[in-house]
C-alpha cells in the first residue's frame, strides 16, 4: 500500500508541469523572502487565487514551494543588510551580518543555502518516514476528536504566541463566529444574511486570507519610515568555504533542522520562534562561545537549518488535523480546502499519494534551493535594495484582482478591503492573526464535526468525555485555558503577586 503510494507520488511529481510549478514557486518564494517587509504569507495569499486553474497537487506544490523558498530567501537580506527578509531569518542577522562585514558575505550566503537545504531535507525525509504512523493516528480520530482538536489548536496558539491569551482566544472565537455567516452546515435557514443572496455562501475564507496577509501587511508596511536600503553590498568571500563549514558541522545542522521541525509541529509556533531557539541551543552546546554574535558560522547554520526544518514540521498538524502552525500554513490549509483536499483521513488515507508527492516536492525543492542559492541568488542581491513603496500598489492590485477572480463576486473585493483594514488593526494591537484566520478557515469543519458528534450522541455533550482521546483533548483545552489563572493563584500563594 505504502509502496504503491510512493510510486504514485513520484509519478505525480515527474509528470506534467509539476516540476515547473515547483521551480516557479521556489523562485517567487526566494524573491519575496529576500525583500524585507514581504514574506511567505504575502506570497502565498496573492498566489492562492491564481492556483484556481491548477489541479490540486500542482497548486499545493506551487504554494509550498513559495513557502519553502521564502524561508531561505529571508536569510539573504539578513546577511547582507542586517534586516531579515522574514521573521524566520531574524537570528541569522546575529552572525550572518557580522560575517558579511568581515568580507565573508559569499561564505555566509552559501552557508545559509547549504544549511537550509540540509536541515530542510533531513526534516522532510523524517516526515516521509513518519507518514505511515501519522496515518494510523489520524484514522483513530472521529468527529468529536476533530471538533476538539480544532478548539485545542486555537487555544494552544494563544499560549504559544507572544501575545495576550485573552486577545488570542477572542480573535479565534471571532473568526469561528464569522465563519457561521451563510447557509449552515446542518439543515436550516441561512444565518446572518439579512435576506441578501450575496451572503448565502458566507464570507470566502480565501478573500479573508488575502485581505489580512496582503492588504493588512501593506497598510502596516507603508507606515514604516525609511524602508529603503541603500547599502553598498560587497560580495566577497568563498562559496566553497561555506559548504565546507556546513559539512564540518553536521551535528549542529541536523540538530537545528530537527529543532525547527519539532517547534514547527506545535500549532502557533513557527520559524520566527524556532530560529531563535535553535540559535540559543547552538550557543549553549558551544559552551557559550564568545564568537557567537560576531560572525560565528555555526550561528548562521543553526538559524537557517531550523527555519527550513520548520516547514516540514508545520505540515504535520496542518495535513493531519487541519491545525496550521503559522500564517503561511493557514493559507496553505486554505489552498488545500480550495482544491477539495480536506486535511485528516482524506489526505492520509484516500489521497496519501498526493500527500507523499507534496513531501517529495519539498525534498526536491531543498536540493533546488541549494543549487539556486549557490549559483544564482548570490548574483541577484540587488533585490534586497528594492524600495517596498513600489511594491505596495502592485500587491494591492494583484490582491484585489485575485479576490474578484475567485467568483466574480464584489463581496470578495470588499471582504479583502475590510479584512485588510481589520487585520492591520489586529496586528497593530497584538491580536493573534493566526488564531483569527484559523477560526475562519476551521469554522465550517469544526461546526460540521460538532453537529455530527451531537447527532451521534443524541445531543449529549458526554461524547466529548466518554472516550480516552476526546477526554484527553478536553482536559488539554481546559489546562491551556486555565493555566494563566493557576499561575496567578500560585504567585499569590508564593507571595510574588503584586
Amino acid at each position, binding site marked *: 500500500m505504502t509502496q504503491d503510494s510512493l510510486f504514485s507520488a513520484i509519478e505525480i511529481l515527474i509528470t506534467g508541469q509539476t516540476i515547473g510549478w515547483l521551480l516557479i514557486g521556489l523562485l517567487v518564494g526566494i524573491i519575496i523572502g529576500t525583500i524585507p517587509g514581504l514574506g511567505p504569507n504575502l506570497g502565498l495569499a496573492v498566489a492562492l487565487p491564481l492556483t484556481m486553474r491548477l489541479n490540486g497537487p500542482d497548486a499545493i506544490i506551487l504554494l509550498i514551494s513559495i513557502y519553502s523558498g521564502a524561508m531561505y530567501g529571508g536569510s539573504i537580506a539578513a546577511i547582507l543588510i542586517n534586516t531579515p527578509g522574514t521573521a524566520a531569518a531574524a537570528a541569522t542577522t546575529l552572525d550572518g551580518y557580522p560575517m558579511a562585514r568581515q568580507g565573508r558575505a559569499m561564505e555566509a550566503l552559501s552557508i545559509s543555502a547549504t544549511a537550509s537545504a540540509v536541515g530542510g531535507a533531513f526534516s522532510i525525509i523524517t516526515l516521509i518516514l513518519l507518514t505511515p504512523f501519522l496515518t494510523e493516528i489520524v484514522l483513530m480520530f472521529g468527529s468529536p476528536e476533530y471538533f476538539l482538536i480544532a478548539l485545542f489548536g486555537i487555544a494552544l496558539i494563544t499560549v504559544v504566541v507572544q501575545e495576550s491569551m485573552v486577545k488570542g482566544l477572542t480573535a479565534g472565537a471571532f473568526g469561528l463566529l464569522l465563519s457561521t455567516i451563510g447557509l449552515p452546515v446542518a439543515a436550516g435557514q441561512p444565518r446572518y444574511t439579512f435576506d441578501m443572496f450575496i451572503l448565502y455562501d458566507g464570507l470566502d475564507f480565501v478573500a479573508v486570507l488575502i485581505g489580512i496577509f496582503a492588504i493588512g501587511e501593506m497598510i502596516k508596511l507603508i507606515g514604516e519610515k525609511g524602508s529603503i536600503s541603500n547599502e553598498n553590498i560587497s560580495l566577497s568571500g568563498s562559496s566553497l568555504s561555506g559548504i565546507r563549514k556546513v559539512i564540518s558541522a553536521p551535528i549542529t545542522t541536523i540538530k537545528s533542522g530537527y529543532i525547527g521541525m519539532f517547534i514547527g509541529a506545535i500549532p502557533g509556533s513557527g520559524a520566527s520562534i524556532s530560529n531563535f531557539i535553535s540559535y540559543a541551543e547552538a550557543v549553549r552546546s558551544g559552551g557559550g562561545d564568545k564568537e557567537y554574535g560576531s560572525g560565528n558560522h555555526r550561528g548562521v547554520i543553526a538559524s537557517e537549518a531550523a527555519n527550513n526544518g520548520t516547514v516540514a514540521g508545520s505540515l504535520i498538524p496542518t495535513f493531519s488535523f487541519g491545525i496550521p502552525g503559522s500564517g503561511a500554513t493557514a493559507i496553505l490549509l486554505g489552498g488545500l480546502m480550495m482544491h477539495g483536499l480536506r486535511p485528516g483521513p482524506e489526505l492520509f488515507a484516500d489521497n496519501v499519494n498526493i500527500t507523499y508527492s507534496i513531501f517529495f516536492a519539498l525534498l526536491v525543492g531543498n536540493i533546488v534551493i541549494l543549487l539556486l542559492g549557490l549559483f544564482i541568488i548570490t548574483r541577484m542581491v540587488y533585490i534586497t535594495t528594492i524600495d517596498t513603496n513600489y511594491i505596495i500598489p502592485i500587491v494591492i*492590485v494583484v490582491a484585489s484582482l*485575485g479576490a474578484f477572480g475567485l467568483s466574480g463576486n464584489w463581496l470578495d473585493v470588499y471582504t479583502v478591503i475590510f479584512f485588510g483594514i481589520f487585520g492591520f488593526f489586529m496586528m497593530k494591537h497584538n491580536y493573534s492573526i493566526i488564531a483569527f484566520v484559523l477560526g475562519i478557515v476551521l469554522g465550517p469543519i469544526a*461546526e460540521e464535526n460538532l453537529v455530527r458528534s451531537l447527532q451521534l450522541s443524541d445531543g449529549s455533550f458526554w461524547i466529548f468525555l466518554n472516550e480516552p482521546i476526546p477526554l484527553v483533548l478536553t482536559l488539554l483545552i481546559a489546562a491551556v485555558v486555565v493555566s494563566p489563572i493557576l499561575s496567578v493563584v500560585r504567585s499569590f500563594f508564593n507571595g510574588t503577586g503584586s
Partner: protein
Amino acid sequence: MINPIYNSMKNYVTSEVLMLLGMLSVSSYMLVESFSFSSESGIFPQFAAAVTVFGCTVLLLRGFLPKPLQQAIVESDGIFNQYSGGSQEKFNKTNVDYDKNHKPETHNENVIENDDADVDSTKQLLLVGLLTGYGLIGYLIGLVWATPIFIGVFAKIFNFSWFDALMVVSIGIVAALAFNSILPVNMTNGVVF
C-alpha cells in the same frame, strides 16, 4: 469640567477600543440572533459569540481588573520566550544599537526602521482611502480600468518620479490583463460601462 472628561475619553477611546467595540457589537448581535435558529444551526454560533462577547468585555474592562489577573490573562507572554536564551532580545538590541549608533566605515547605508514610534499613520490613512476608492471605481468601471488610475494616484501622492510611476503603472496594467485572462471572470466591466 468638560475638559478633564474629554481628555480621559480621548485617552480611553483608542483604535483598539473602537475595534473591540465593533467586535462586541457584531458578536452581541450574532449571539442574540443565534437563538432564533434551530438548535443544530444555533449551537455553534452561540458558543463562538459567547466567547467573543466575554473576551471583548474582559479586554475593554482590563483596566479595572486586579493587577495579577491583568498580567496573567491580558498581558501573558509566549511559552517559548524562556527557551530562546536571550537571543531574541539580543536581536532586538542589536538592531536598535545598529539603527542608533552604527556609523559605517566603508558602507553607505540607510537602515530599515521598524519601531512603532516611527510609524507614519498619515500614509496608512491615505492608503486606506486609496484602497476604498479603488474598490469603488473598480465597481463602477471594472477593476482592469481602475488599476492604472489607482496606481497613478498612488504614485502622485507618494512622489514617485515620472519614470518610476510609468513603470509601476505598466506593471499594474500587465498584471490586471494577465489576471483577466487567467481567471474565469470578466474584470473589464463595471456597472457604468
